[in-house]
């Protein structure tokens, strides 16, 4: 696949600012709502409270109760009514409060949302975004720390993306809202308060594209969402051992843009794929399979994976062991290099 080209940003004069991921998402929603009166925000507690993570903070105050809907508490209802609104020409952005709560809405996503366009051969468009704060590391109770993205990446007709930093949060959410396809938007909840410089006039990548965040010559690490920071930290630590690690942020999990990963693996000969999700039949499985098919003669070592485990998400006192950390990533890098 050709390298993605940067998208132009127009002539906004907003100055560069330091923002968090949460603020990037908030600004993205605000921009989208200002630009298009058909954009709605809906979900549990998104209005007066501003969402349990305050991502929708202040939007209801400025856009009103008909643009920012505090809904009854039922996920199938949130997603199902949003589908109807989208069929009517609205562009709803649903918030699912926590990853583990998306399953009451799974039926609507899989049976209706993903299939409307195909079923109608394009006569019905469902431009719907479902925002899902996902992943662990916040010491929460059951159903608040899961990584269900692979379940959705497996479903034809859905786009599944995950941002890892404030700049991507800002651009990717606006792109997701502009997309005529349904998008599952996975937000790394434990990174909501990570900061970065955002220059709204700078160029940015298209939604479906992976990004090389750090170049290196020895091992390629491909990852996404909350694990990006962990892998970047691991790459910095690997330097002390004299290992030069390249890090690719996948960004779009379905469809995957594996061009930059393959290009990287052809140089390094080694790939480690990292995510918090259980490994079996996951996004990491898909990356590993396709890279070994495409780069078989370049590989010096089998593609290795670092994941959570094929267990339900454990009680929070055990999550430190469940979640891939810097040491587990470094261990995989070392094992790859040892072949």
């Amino acid at each position, binding site marked *: *696949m050709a390298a993605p080209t940067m998208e132009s940003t127009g002539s906004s004069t907003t100055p560069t600012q330091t923002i968090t991921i949460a603020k990037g998402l908030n600004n993205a929603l605000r921009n989208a709502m200002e630009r298009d009166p058909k954009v709605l925000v809906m979900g549990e507690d998104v209005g007066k409270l501003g969402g349990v993570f305050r991502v929708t903070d202040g939007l209801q105050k400025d856009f009103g109760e*008909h643009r920012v809907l505090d*809904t*009854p508490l*039922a996920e*199938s*209802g949130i*997603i*199902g*009514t*949003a*589908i*109807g*609104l*989208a*069929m*009517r*020409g*609205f562009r709803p952005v649903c918030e699912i409060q926590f990853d583990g709560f998306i399953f*009451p809405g799974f*039926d*609507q996503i899989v*049976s*209706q949302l993903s*299939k409307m*366009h*195909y*079923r*109608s*051969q*394009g*006569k*019905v*468009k469902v*431009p719907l975004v479902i925002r899902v704060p996902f992943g662990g590391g916040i010491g929460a109770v059951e159903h608040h720390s899961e990584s269900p993205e692979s379940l959705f990446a497996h479903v*034809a*007709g859905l*786009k599944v993306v995950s941002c890892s930093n404030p700049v991507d949060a800002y651009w990717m959410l606006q792109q997701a809202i502009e*997309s*005529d*396809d349904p998008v599952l938007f996975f937000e790394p909840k434990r990174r909501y308060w990570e900061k970065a410089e955002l220059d709204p006039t700078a160029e940015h990548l298209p939604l*479906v594209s992976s990004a090389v965040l750090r170049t290196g010559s020895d091992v390629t690490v491909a990852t996404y969402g909350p694990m990006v920071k962990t892998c970047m930290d691991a790459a910095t630590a690997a330097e002390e051992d004299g290992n030069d690690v390249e890090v690719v942020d996948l960004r779009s999990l*379905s*469809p*995957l*843009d594996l061009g930059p990963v393959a290009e990287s693996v052809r140089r390094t000969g080694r790939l480690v794929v990292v995510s918090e999700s259980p490994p079996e039949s996951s996004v990491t499985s898909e990356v590993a399979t396709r890279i070994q098919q495409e780069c078989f003669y370049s590989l010096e070592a089998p593609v290795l994976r670092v994941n959570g485990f094929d267990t339900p998400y454990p009680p929070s006192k055990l999550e430190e062991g469940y979640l891939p950390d810097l040491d587990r990533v470094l261990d995989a890098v070392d094992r790859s290099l040892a072949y």
Partner: protein
Amino acid sequence: MRATSEGGADLVQLLTPEGQRVSHPDFDIDITDEQLRGMYRDMVLVRRADREGNALQRQGQLGIWVPLLGQEAAQIGAGRAMRPQDMAFPSYREHGVAWCRGIDPTELLGIFRGTDHGSWDPNETGMSLYTIVIGNQCVNATGYAMGQKFEGKVGNSGDDPASNEATMVFFGDGATSQGDVHEGMVWASVYDAPVVFFCQNNQWAISEPTERQSRVPLYERAKGYGFPGIRVDGNDVLATLAVSQWAMNEARQGNGPLLIEAFTYRMDAHTTSDDATRYRLDDELEAWKLKDPIERLRAHLLREEIADQEFFDRVDSEADELAARFREFCVNMPEPPPERMFSAVYAEESPVVAAQREDYLNYLAGFADSGHDTEGSVR
């Protein structure tokens, strides 16, 4: 509540099973002779297409058919209460509603022959595509109705009250056990959405009777959501029309949602794959035959001299023509080309799907090179 019961004292009826016009204090209706004849014609034609669908399945031309037999009055009464700007969200048995939305019966065939998932345009016809997962459409319909309200298409008086809109969603008695029906009603209620929930209680959810779904009459559930529920004789097209018109007008005027339970009976099996003789008795079927919706209106038309034998003959011959056209269309439907499998998965094409299409078409082209018949290899 049993299938053979009369539907209870609250049942709204305007035509007795013998075709005699009766009055109802709340639901009188102004209707012309022409409209009555039109609804008779609707029911006869829809039943004829339905019977042809059953026959085509038996002859191996359709993979499956979902019979409408017995529910013509419920669907024509509801369907004729809709205006062009209204929106219908069907389940999968709504051939009569489709007819009222101007969808030619031949457009239903692809779904059951396996060439498409429904070929009509929901935006042009005002009817969404069939929904097969039970109850899913109830929340979708409510969302659509919320959109009608948000766009200010509800409760307008003054210059153009005819521009008001509402949504009608169709589901069965079995669906009322699904969470989505409940959630649809909760949302409709709290957002005052202009949606009419039209439940066709045909007494059986495949083999499960209504008492497996509820211990109260289904229409009474509406009270719990805070909107009116009403039970109408679903084999009485006049009563169904009157109640549906009232409900749709209420919704269009901004008075919020309503539930209609059309008390009717599925005279055939659930689908052509079902064997209804395993779970229901002949007595029940015989009792419901006496309430047949078409015979009932026909008796009324004759009794009141609204139609003569020439009219009935003309409708019958029109039904013959429709059946012949339906059959011919079915057997001549072209097979979809292999690339159709990959078409319109996304609005913006996925590179992954594009690559799979290319690989598959190349694979098929390989058979062409070796002299194999590609047509035969892609089934």
